[in-house]
């Protein structure tokens, strides 16, 4: 069922993997369905590393602070259907999320909340992320999952699994602990699980909006005559 390629455990596969997983997809003339997923959480929890890992099967040795929103995508095949998974990797600093990130909540099909299991503060921020997300999402039944990252750092765990599990249960979200760094932690499986969920989600409208619907964006709501 999951045929998105190997998870990258075997070192020898690395190069062929990069060849088969491209960051921009071209599925030819048949238009693939698109799943848009937004990834949010505090700064430094590893959102960039997780999305990078999923899209390239590598752990980036040098990430930089994300400013605004970065976009990554990967094409997979689920049950014989080609699917394009688009990940919106957002900036963690509060000032960005308060005014810049909203634009990207619109039309997303799923949300991934990330915290760092070695940083309690990043876990404690989750309620405010969840609240914010509720305000911006268009629909209530958008699938959401919780991801605790950096579980390779076993000696510095601050957020116990059962605490996180309870929290996830109380918000009816599945919870995963993983590591973007460790190849055996199957970051890929998490995103693929989400993709499966989306695929079976009946209320989802997953095609591109028709070209002729003109929706003005929030940044430039009005069109003006040009005075120049």
């Amino acid at each position, binding site marked *: 069922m999951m045929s998105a390629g190997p998870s990258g455990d075997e070192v020898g596969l690395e190069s062929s993997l990069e060849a088969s997983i491209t960051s*921009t997809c071209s599925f030819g003339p048949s238009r693939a369905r*698109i799943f*848009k997923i937004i990834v949010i959480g505090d*700064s*430094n929890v590893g959102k960039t590393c997780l999305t990078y890992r999923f899209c390239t099967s590598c752990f980036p040795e*040098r*990430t*930089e*602070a*994300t*400013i*605004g*929103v*970065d*976009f990554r*995508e990967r094409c997979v095949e689920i049950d014989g259907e080609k699917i394009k998974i*688009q990940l919106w990797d957002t*900036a963690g*600093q509060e*000032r*960005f999320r*308060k*005014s*810049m990130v909203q*634009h*990207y909540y619109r039309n997303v099909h799923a949300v991934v909340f990330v915290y760092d299991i070695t940083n309690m503060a990043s876990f404690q921020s989750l309620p405010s992320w969840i609240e914010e997300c509720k305000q911006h999402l268009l629909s209530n039944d958008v699938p959401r999952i919780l991801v605790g990252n950096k579980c390779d750092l076993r000696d510095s765990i601050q957020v116990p699994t059962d605490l996180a599990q309870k929290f996830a249960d109380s918000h009816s979200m599945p919870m995963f602990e993983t590591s973007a760094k460790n190849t055996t932690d199957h970051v890929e499986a998490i995103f693929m699980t989400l993709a499966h969920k989306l695929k079976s989600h009946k209320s989802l409208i997953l095609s*591109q*909006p028709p*070209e002729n619907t*003109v*929706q*003005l*964006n*929030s*940044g*430039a*709501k*009005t*069109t*003006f005559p*040009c*005075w*120049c």
Partner: protein
Amino acid sequence: MRCPRGRGAQWGNAQGPPKGTTGGRAMSWRKQKALQIHQALTSDPIDIDALRNAAVSEGGLLSQEIRRKVWPKLLNVSVLSLPPKPGPSIRCNHRDFNQVEMDVRRSLRRFPAGMPDAERSVLQEQLTDMILYVLQSHPELNYYQGYHDIAVTLLLTVGPRLGTAMLSSLSTHHLRDFMERTMDPTKHMLNYLMPVIRCESVQLHDFMLRSEVGYIFALSWLITWYGHVLSNYHQVLRLYDFFLASHPLMPVYCAAQMVLMREQEVLRGDCDMPSVHQLLSNIPKDFPFETLVCRTHGLFQRRPPAQLVTQASLHKYKSVSIASFHSLLHSSSSQRPDFVLRRQADPEPGALAPPRSQNRLVKLAVWGLSASLGAAALAVTQSALEWGPEILLGLF
């Protein structure tokens, strides 16, 4: 496309750098420009208009040596009143300390490849200190992710102390709007983007509007002055020359111009947010930055912000960055040259003059220049030699 020569200064060679000619002629064009910058720096008061023109016009400020001299002047920073060396207390409980540290720790890519780790760690410490010093001395300013990309460019060019002084000045001028409590003023600046594009191409404007791409693709361009997105350090420096000498909205015009230069590419692509965002975010490695600067300058002259402000979404907000720019222009016009400042600070004659042997070398150098360039070089005065021969030596 002609390159901006601006008002005032006329570069000796009115044709600008000869294109595709011999290295010899190109070299002499650079020498002439360097010499004219040198004259602007040593006249009293310094010729700030000429320096601004030099920073904008083709080739920018040419070398790190010249940038070290000119960048502070563009922000009215005196090399003789620098902030003290920061002590450890600077790191104590500042509200943004954690974020600064996380960002500086992850800024490895901003340092020259091949720099030894030990050296880079020292610079990273200095970077953190620079940022915290400015934040501590201006409690009203808020750190934002990306501020460190600006700070690191200053650090690598002018060093930690001058860098701190420049960062401080920038933070109360060009970057001021980005450092408010919220990013609303930053959004306001970005609100200029689409109207500028519309002035030049309604078709592109409408396409982008239809795609709902918004303006967030240009956010990091604006708030880091492209330092965050360009891996070629020379391109970054060229843009910093330009932006340091320009209006705070210039990076937005630059974003607009960049999109306009890629118009055909954009129009050929899919009209949806991810596609357009993706396309525009990936700036081609070989993008012609010199042309970009040149055209952006022209665009700004043609469509100045005042002309756009008549549009509803733009005029209701007062930008502190824009308002303070005029006072910066004014105050920077009466700066004394460094050699005068040094003399004032230490009136003992000869104390700061270069050692005699070096002085003779410089005189020889100037003589050589005069011979090859003619009259222009004769304007290099004795005071210029006192002031510091680095630039001239840098020519050889």
